[in-house]
């Protein structure tokens, strides 16, 4: 993916950085709440003695950035939403918008993100968690490059740097490089209400554009010799050479599966499960029931999935349409896992995980799977439930 910014061959224009702090992010964690989505929970967190985490973490990131304060223009919302911490770190931000101190909400996050995009920021640096990422995603989509300073309780999304300090570092490199390389990071969140009751329901909400090196262990500039596009081409070619015309191909969500189908000039829904037969998309964004109908009694079917999020889940996070019932019917031998080697390496030795909601099916998937990582290239991965 290339940067939104035009590459110029002359002197680079002054880069603009938007800084957005969700002042209540991360408060729920230490007091045993699962997050701070919603005003009531925030009040509860405060009552339990929670202290704001995000300003402190944002400060850590900004301190790393401080040496370039004279090179860039910084834009923020007032007070606790960024201005205060920026001033503490030695920046002189251009402050926009208004807030009611002590009573900010997700609407303020959305407003701030929207305004900053309008002002043409090159990078939007935010301190928060999954909820903040969702709020930002809702209003900016993939229009601007975004990077998260990890400060929330829930951080399933692949839009955060591993530490606040690294966030500062990545930001500096991104703003200083003439053509900052970007990629798409998943925005995931779990439903806090059901999680507090003990059920985990993780949904894939969409993708934000992030600096490439924030996602991977290695920085992009030292990265391998293949581009993301070439990797996907390799995976797609490998997959296509084994495809059978009569078989139902059920493609799970994700950028990898979307890009594979793009190689066949087929458009895939990014977040949905789509079905391909004989080289044509026969159904888009299907749910469990529709899948069951399409599969009929004994139609041969294969599922193509890619790990979603940083945890390595191939079933049960962000693709719940592929339920235990469906996966069980398709069977382990007909499940094709695709991923880049980089993605598998970023799991840091952890296995691929399944959580279809059906323990028997989950157990049947355990063992080893050959993940397609390129043309004629596979990696053996352990699957656990």
């Amino acid at each position: 993916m290339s940067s939104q910014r035009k590459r110029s061959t002359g002197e680079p224009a002054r880069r603009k950085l938007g800084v957005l702090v969700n002042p209540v992010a991360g408060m729920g964690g230490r007091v045993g709440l699962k997050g701070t989505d919603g005003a009531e929970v925030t009040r509860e967190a405060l009552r339990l003695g929670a202290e704001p985490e995000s300003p402190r973490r944002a400060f850590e990131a900004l301190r790393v950035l401080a040496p370039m304060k004279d090179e860039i223009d910084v834009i923020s919302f007032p007070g606790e939403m960024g201005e205060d911490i920026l001033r503490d770190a030695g920046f002189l931000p251009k402050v926009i918008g208004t807030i009611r101190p002590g009573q900010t909400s997700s609407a303020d996050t959305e407003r701030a993100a929207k305004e900053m995009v309008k002002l043409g920021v090159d990078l939007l640096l935010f301190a928060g968690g999954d909820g903040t990422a969702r709020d930002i995603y809702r209003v900016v989509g993939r229009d601007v490059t975004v990077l998260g300073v990890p400060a929330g309780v829930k951080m399933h999304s692949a839009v955060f740097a591993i530490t606040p300090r690294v966030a500062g570092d990545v930001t500096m490199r991104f703003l200083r490089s003439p053509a900052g390389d970007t990629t798409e990071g998943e925005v995931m969140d779990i439903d806090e209400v059901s999680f507090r009751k003990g059920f985990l329901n993780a949904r894939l909400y969409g993708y934000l554009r992030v600096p490439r090196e924030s996602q991977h262990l290695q920085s992009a500039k030292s990265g391998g010799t293949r581009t993301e596009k070439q990797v996907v081409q390799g995976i797609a070619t490998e997959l296509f050479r084994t495809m059978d015309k009569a078989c139902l191909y059920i493609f799970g969500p994700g950028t990898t599966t979307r890009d594979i189908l793009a190689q066949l000039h087929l458009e895939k829904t990014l977040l949905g499960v789509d079905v391909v037969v004989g080289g044509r998309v026969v159904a888009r964004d299907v749910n469990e029931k529709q899948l069951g109908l399409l599969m009929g009694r004994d139609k041969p079917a294969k599922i193509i999935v890619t790990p979603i999020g940083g945890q390595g889940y191939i079933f049960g996070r962000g693709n719940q349409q592929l339920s235990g019932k469906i996966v069980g019917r398709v069977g382990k031998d007909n499940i094709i896992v695709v991923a880049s080697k980089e993605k598998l390496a970023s799991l840091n030795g952890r296995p691929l995980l399944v959580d279809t909601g059906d323990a028997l099916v989950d157990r049947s998937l355990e063992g080893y799977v050959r993940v397609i990582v390129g043309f004629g290239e596979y990696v053996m991965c352990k699957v656990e439930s």
Partner: protein
Amino acid sequence: MPRDPDTLLRKFHEARWDEQIIFEMSVPGERGILVNEADPKVRKAVGNAASSIPNGLRRKSAPKLPEVNQMRVLRHFMHLSQETMGTDVTIDISQGTCTMKYSPKVQEHMAGRHPGIREIHPLQPAETVQGLLEIIYSLEKFLKEISGMDRFSFQPAGGAQAAYTASSIVRAYHASRKDLERTETITTMFSHPCDAAGPSTAGFNVITIMPDKDGYADIDAFKAALSKRTAAIFITNPEDTGIYNPRIDEFVKAAHDVGALCYYDQANANGMLGITRARDAGFDLCHFNLHKTFSVPHGSMGGAVGALGCAGYLAKYLPVPQVKYDKKKGYYYDYGTKDSIGKVRSFMGNTQSLVKSYSWIMQHGAEGLHETAVCSVLNNNYMMKLLSEVPGVTIHYAPGKRRLEQVRYTWEQLKKDTGVGTEDVMRRMADFGLQHYWTSHHPWVLPEPFTLEPCESYSKDDIDEYVAVLRQISKEAYENPEFVKNSPYNQVVHRVPNPSINEPERIAVTWRQYLKKGLDKKSSSKLQSKRVHS
């Protein structure tokens, strides 16, 4: 300025010549030294030399070469050579897996100056190059003894070509048995990439095994990958972590049980010479990098040799010609095997390098080779101990276990604590007169990696100085991360913008491209960094 005796750090500064590109130095009419015309008799005997070149191959106009006098050419390239940090200039422990050992200069003398090597032609009849053929024959004998294998080919010009050649042999072997279903090979994540690339180029599908929690290739995953489709396994041991896989015989047995062949990439053999042998562990094929273990300098496909060995039943597939000996005929080229996979390199490959390895082995003898292994392992474990005490350094896997000849370290902790990563440290090293180190193959399995190999050539003092530099940089990172991130300070180029690699419109690898893209019209300071990098 002498090295500080207490800190072992140097006040180093690289030469900085602000050198132009040679094309920019061109002055019309300037030239080198004119050679006297040949004697009329000679000219008459030779006739018009150009007429021997076919018309279609002759230039219509002169090449646009820079016009520079000889002395300026000499100075130009001397200047550039002073702006590099090669093995002969610096303590080159940095290039882990490359085994940057000292290559005694006597070998250069033998290979480059001895008329019996320098002045012969590959098309000369065998009876006129008996000396060279004897060297090749003897070197093969040495490597057979070292590895336990039955035959060697020296044609592959590097480890990757050896892996490709071995893949071709694997294919020929299974084809000869009408076993055509074997389309897959298996390798491991920490094996060298050529163990995947070689078979892949030869048309195999490649399955990679990830490491288990101790850093060994996961044997259960390996067994799950084996099948009647498995043609061969291509494996490095010790892998690039420096950890020797003690269960390697189980891997070999499991592969043989399904009818697959086993290939041992011995590029990391320096710590095992005279201690273990590939054939004794059951392997069917192996290769040594003569440009690593056997002292030939690295040469970017120029001087490299991937000496490929195999068991007797695979010898008929090796590239031809092979050098053989007969009491009556002496040494001769044998083209006789109809099953050979053919040539992978013209003539006998990089023969000068064979002379260097032959010389090196002769200097050491069997006991010397064993001592090489022992010293390289000792050096490595001494260095690992020192580095394990440097703040910010992590050594993953197999805690408490010794490594063989190299270690994959990481600056993961330093990055978390200070934001300073492996590439920052790498740049800062140059300020102390050390070459940047090698990180890891891609993708990085371990974050912020660096791989060091202090083979037998380096003294305790060399290792102490090297570690002192890393210790100093770690200290600087904890005290002032920005300082390290902005390094280097004592180099020709302060910092090269890496993302420029992704900007085709700003990269020029030839002068013609450079002009075509209008890069000559940009400011000179920018060009300087661009030039040095590209």
